[in-house]
């Protein structure tokens, strides 16, 4: 294929954001009649690259060629006019309009100054037929399944001028048969000569549908591969950016911690999860957590780690299975009930789901404890100060005063404030979702140290991180997730980075 001329060629693309180099000299090629998968972890630069291609961002340097001609789209509309079309993850259609209206929105066929409904409906049927769909196009879109809505979104961008189709996570809300249906359509469009760029977190789907793969990591171009010549394990190592031989690190754990954990073992499981699952979010899974345990959740982005945590903390409500806390069945139908049952949860999205920027550090820390006590048993200021000061000291939060606003803190210290908020409630289970994301190396180490300290004191901790190394360093057991399901649990000698990766690459 390399002797053919690519339809899209991006050369040495650079894109800077304040303080970050999102893309560094990235090359990318897309050919006619292929399905090309773009792979990479969080922050790899996938979406930035796509946004440059579709005119949402403009590159700071580098050039882009479409059919050999230089292009520089300055808006998504300009990109569409060039024939580059995108279907986004969240289907952005109008649910209350008819299918035909959705397909032709903004380009309705007109006659005599009015919309020519007959032609529009007929044409909509034709376009959908091309996608193997035959439905009543005059009904409102909301009466059809998400899979059909997805097809309508694709139909909308498919006209004669379409050359490139970008599908951003199109399968994330589809079930298996719907995915199969979508793939059939993708293959058909590919065979008709469309160039398709496919972005997904599902490894297996990448192998099912794609012809070639481009891997990015931390804004760098890692390589372009033919899918059938790239074993899964190799793909994972490319995405994580290390050669397999480098993965010698294994968690021997620290002996003291193991002894402490062993001493706590006979207390029994604090958390026992049986067959907990939610359709479209995560497949049913079992978990057991003992006092003093640190259970790591390892998996690639989108593998279902956060979904697991959200189910246990009652943010999403499971449609099957049950949770037992300290041997008793717990009804966890909201975060509030989870908190009452002794669970704490630090979200991966500190900014929008964790910190109260304009409240003081003291208020941030005592908030969950106060919520637990209720509106009327207000903690006296003295008591608030004592609680906050004690936690600021024990977690090493760096601030001149507990009365400073939380937004003045660095990311790492904000993270510690989140942990402090939960410690104040004296939980028996603490779920930490990516507590080390976006903070500097020193703070990362401190946070991990705190995790070990807390487990020594008997807290059961579920630790989520996309850095396998961190998971290994902190955990004494690891649950491995892949494609929205728990696939294995590793302990002892199996706990190595290559072990985790082999598990992910291995069978389904």
């Amino acid at each position, binding site marked *: 294929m390399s002797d053919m001329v690519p339809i899209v060629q991006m050369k040495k693309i650079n894109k800077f954001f304040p303080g970050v180099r999102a893309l560094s000299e990235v090359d990318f090629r897309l050919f006619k009649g292929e399905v090309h998968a773009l792979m990479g972890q969080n922050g790899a630069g996938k979406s930035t690259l796509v946004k440059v291609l579709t005119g949402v961002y403009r590159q700071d340097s580098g050039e882009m060629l479409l059919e050999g001609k230089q292009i520089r789209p300055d808006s998504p509309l300009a990109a569409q006019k060039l024939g580059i079309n995108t279907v986004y993850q969240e289907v952005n259609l109008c649910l209350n309009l008819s299918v035909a209206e959705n397909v032709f929105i903004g380009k309705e066929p007109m006659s005599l100054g009015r919309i020519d409904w007959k032609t529009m409906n007929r044409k909509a049927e034709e376009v959908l037929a091309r996608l193997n769909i035959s439905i009543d196009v005059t009904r409102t879109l909301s009466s059809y399944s998400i899979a059909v809505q997805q097809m309508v979104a694709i139909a909308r961008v498919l006209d004669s001028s379409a050359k490139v189709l970008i599908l951003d996570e199109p399968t994330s809300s589809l079930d298996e048969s719907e995915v199969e249906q979508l793939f059939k359509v993708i293959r058909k469009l590919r065979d008709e000569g469309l160039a398709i760029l496919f972005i997904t977190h599902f490894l297996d789907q990448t192998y099912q549908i794609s012809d070639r793969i481009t891997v990015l990591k931390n804004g760098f171009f890692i390589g372009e591969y033919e899918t059938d010549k790239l074993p899964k394990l190799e793909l994972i190592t490319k995405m994580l950016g290390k050669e397999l031989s480098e993965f010698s690190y294994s968690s021997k754990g620290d002996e003291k911690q193991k002894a402490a954990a062993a001493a706590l073992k006979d207390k029994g499981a604090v958390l026992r999860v049986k067959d907990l699952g939610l359709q479209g979010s995560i497949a049913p899974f079992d978990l057991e957590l003992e006092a003093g345990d640190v259970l790591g959740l390892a998996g690639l982005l989108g593998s279902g780690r956060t979904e697991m945590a959200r189910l246990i903390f009652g943010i999403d409500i499971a449609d099957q299975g049950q949770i037992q806390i300290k041997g008793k069945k717990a009804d966890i139908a909201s975060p509030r009930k989870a908190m009452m049952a002794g669970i704490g949860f630090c979200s991966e999205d500190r900014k929008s789901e964790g910190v109260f920027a304009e*409240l003081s550090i003291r208020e941030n820390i005592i908030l*969950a404890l106060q*919520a637990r006590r209720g509106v009327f048993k207000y903690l006296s200021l003295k008591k608030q100060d004592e609680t906050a000061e004690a936690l600021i000291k024990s977690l090493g939060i760096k601030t001149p005063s507990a009365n400073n606003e939380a937004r003045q803190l660095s990311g790492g210290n904000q993270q510690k404030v989140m942990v402090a908020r939960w410690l104040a409630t004296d939980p028996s289970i603490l779920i930490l979702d990516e507590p080390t994301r976006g903070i500097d190396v020193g703070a990362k180490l401190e946070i991990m140290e705190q995790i070990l300290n807390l487990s020594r004191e008997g807290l059961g901790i579920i630790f989520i991180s996309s850095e396998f190394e961190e998971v290994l360093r902190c955990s004494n057991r690891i649950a491995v997730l892949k494609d929205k399901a728990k696939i294995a649990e590793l302990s002892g000698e199996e706990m190595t980075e290559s072990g985790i990766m082999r598990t992910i690459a291995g069978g389904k």
Partner: protein
Amino acid sequence: MAWWRSLTNKKLFWPLFALAVLLIFNLFFTPHFFRMEMKEGHLYGNVIDILKNGAPIMLLAIGLTLVIATKGIDISVGSVVAISAGVVAMLIGGDLQGHPKYPILMAMGAAILVSILAGMWNGMLVSRVRMQPIIATLILFVAGRGIAMVTTNAMVVWLYAKPFALLGQGYILGLPFSIYIVLILVLLTALVTRMTALGLFIEAVGINPTASRFAGINAKNILFGVYAFSGFCAGISGLVVCSTVMSADGNNAGLGYEMDAILAVVIGGTSMNGGKFYLLGSIVGALIVQTLTTTIYAFNIPPEISKVVKALVVWAVCLLQSSSFRSMIAGAFGKKELSA
């Protein structure tokens, strides 16, 4: 300059500053603005008028402060004022001898109850149905006038029951009775929000609703509560309005009050983005709005341009509040002051 900086950083400083500027302006340019007379045992004068006429807006602003702190808005309060006035007027009745149809206290209680129900309706729409606050309260903003009209059979009801006049026209120790109602309500609200965790929870929900849910706060109940409370405040405001003119007019009672009250809250330092709230700031804000209105009357500014004058002053007060505007000005006057 440190004392100056710490003073200007206080939230209440700029509203008080704006009020002082307005009053000083009046001292020089409005003849007899501060003149007070003792007549029949109470004080008369522009300043007293400001307190008396401003009371209904202040009452609304108290409830709205909490609503706005949750990043919400309640534009129905003016209509609820009309409903409350209508209910109390119908229950007291227009008997020319002044004999109330039902006991006055009972009539007042019923009016307040209906207003709380109106607030609960708003709260239900916002917290359970998850409607956007401005849309949710728009319903009652429109329908409330209709309800008020139905209550009074589309007529202006005149009242003659003397004791009821105390609320809006009475005086204690020379000061209008209504201003004592404001004082009591603002004190009680401050006590309840600051001596319990309620204030903290309201601010938390306003700053970050998702995070407060994750922290175990029952955000739905908080939202429901603040709208119900806003209805309660509007109910009391309606009683004062009705008592002041001893009549209930479904079309005009409380007309446009919601905007003045929202303005008062915002001038008082509570951000429309939700979060920290300042009850006293809102009261000062209402005083600014009312002083402005009184000044415009006292100045005999022709009615056709009075709204423009009001808009200009409000605009200036808002600029004064904006810290980025102030630092812009400070920058224009040289950097010395900034580094001091």
